[in-house]
């Protein structure tokens, strides 16, 4: 029984508080000062390894470790970035990764939410049993299924391509995501759906025009996490891709590690470059996620 304003045209609107209430709210909602120190400290600690990574990418191999560690790199040089990104065709790798990750995100968002919709809001016999069975797919380390999957793709002649990497996303997109979406959907009141059905709407319409718009926060989260998982995935591309021109960024990264030697400084430089798109996507997603999207329910 929560107060709800039914979304019109799929948009949800924030209720504007009365002026007096607004002033009160502003003063009350401002966070207390003692929240800041721990946040600053934590932010610093969380960021420190990233800073170290950036610092390493500015140094040569022999300076990565010093008898006395220094915070500021002594002879920083951007040369590592230039060398790292030109030694291997990272431009090509970037496009490959972009293609794979975009297709993966789209497929996941679509099929995972479809399946979560079914498991949470539609009633059918065996629904819970099928969900439990499907859940087991989350419990397998990739190594275990890797070889049988590889043999299957090889029989289909689709190895050394992006299909093995993208296909699973269009078949439910990972049980983790279905599970997450399901949990969210379970918390959304069903009154809207039921009203729409009674008025003769198809389930497709209910799905696309009622449920999905209400689920923007969780969809953005799923999209973001899926993107990151795909962008940073190393194992699947390693197994399914052979030709260098189809390498993704992560595979390219590991080319800096040889059997006897490893160019850590180039590796870190290339990693910094790879992290940049992920960072951008996160900042964009964050903006939409937190921009006061308020979930509201139906009155009475």
């Amino acid at each position, binding site marked *: 029984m*929560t107060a709800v304003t039914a979304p019109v045209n799929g948009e949800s609107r924030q209720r504007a508080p009365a002026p007096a209430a607004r002033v009160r709210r502003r003063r009350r909602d*401002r966070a207390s000062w003692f929240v*800041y120190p721990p*946040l600053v400290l*934590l*932010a610093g*600690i*969380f*960021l420190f*390894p*990233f800073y*170290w*990574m950036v610092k*390493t990418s500015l140094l040569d191999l022999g300076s990565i470790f010093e008898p006395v*560690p220094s915070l500021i790199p002594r002879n920083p040089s951007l040369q590592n970035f230039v060398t790292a990104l030109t030694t291997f065709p990272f431009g090509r790798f970037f496009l490959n990764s972009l293609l794979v990750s975009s297709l993966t995100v789209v497929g996941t968002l679509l099929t995972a939410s*479809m*399946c979560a*919709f*079914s498991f*949470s809001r*539609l*009633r*059918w*016999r065996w*629904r819970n049993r099928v969900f439990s069975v*499907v859940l*087991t797919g*989350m419990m397998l*380390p990739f*190594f*275990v*299924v890797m070889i049988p*999957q590889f043999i299957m793709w090889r029989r289909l002649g689709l190895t050394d391509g992006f299909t093995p990497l993208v296909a*699973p996303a269009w*078949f*439910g997109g990972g049980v983790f995501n279905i*599970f997450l979406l399901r*949990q*969210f959907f379970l*918390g*959304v009141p*069903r009154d809207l759906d039921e009203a729409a059905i009674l008025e003769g709407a198809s*389930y497709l319409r209910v799905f696309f025009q009622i449920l999905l718009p209400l689920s923007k*926060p969780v969809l*953005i*989260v799923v999209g973001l996490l899926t993107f990151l998982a795909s962008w940073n995935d190393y194992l699947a591309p390693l197994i399914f891709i052979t030709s260098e021109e189809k390498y993704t960024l992560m595979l390219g990264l590991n080319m800096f590690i040889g*059997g006897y030697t490893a160019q850590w400084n180039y590796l870190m430089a290339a*990693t910094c470059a*790879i*992290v940049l798109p*992920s*960072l951008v996507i*996160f*900042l964009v997603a*964050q903006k939409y*996620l*937190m921009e006061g999207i*308020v*979930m509201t*329910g139906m009155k009475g």
Partner: protein
Amino acid sequence: MNGFGSARRREAAAGWLFAMPVILGWVIFVAGPVLVTVFLALTDYNVGGTPRFVGAENYRRFFTSADPSFFASVRATALYGLLSVPACIAVSFLLALLLNTKVRLRGLFRAALFVPVIIPLAASSVIWMWLFQPDFGVVNFVIRALGMSAPQWLASERTVIPTMVLMNVWLSGNSIVIFLAALQAVPRHLYEAVEVEGGNAWHKLVHITLPMVSPTIFFVVVTGFINALQAFVQPAIMTSDAYHAGGPNNASLLYVLFIYREAFRFSKLGSASAAAVLLFAVIAALTWFFFRFSRSFVYYEAGERT
């Protein structure tokens, strides 16, 4: 009545239809490979020759300690899971609460806490390994400067798992973001209702926040465990090399690393499959356990229970 019956049928049909992608996916990408694995678990297949049926021989080797590293691996993984999940949940929930307030520069703090997750795990494992190097790493340098005794972190069998747990907490940005989305979805008027009745922040937390967010907490706990039991990249990079996988005295030979080693270093796919089947069974049991007991402490707004 007719209308009611066909409405039900329509709903059931829609149910199946919408769930088709994952059902098909499960058959193709999960069931098939798992069947192969279950079969291989009973053989001594090592990729070169043909699989030869040996029955429960692989399991005998595990459980009679003919292979002592099996139990070492189970111990290490259990310890890691039991330490890592509560730590990550507690920290990420707390941080999500902190970030849900109207802190200035909230976006910046949020980004800072999430950055660890964006870095490819292999690269951050290497950095972590360097920072915690006992002789010349930054962390011990600071500790020594503060006058305390410097632990050995990844180099000692007593501290290697706690160090990896620490890294996992650093990587809980995923959970923070998920919790944040859940916190954001809690209707504001519920908090106002508590205020009107004279409640403070604590009441809000216990009576509104926790119940409303409980499905999400449940989700994060279950997936946290499943992921912890499958950790591979960190122990592989931080405590293994080309010849020895598993850390000081096998103290960080986490289970998936054990499977990897059996399969690809020793070329014993039969034995590795046997171990994988066990992992699968344990996770399935844990998940069933969680779902059973979730009914009693998870609240669903829509009145719908699992």
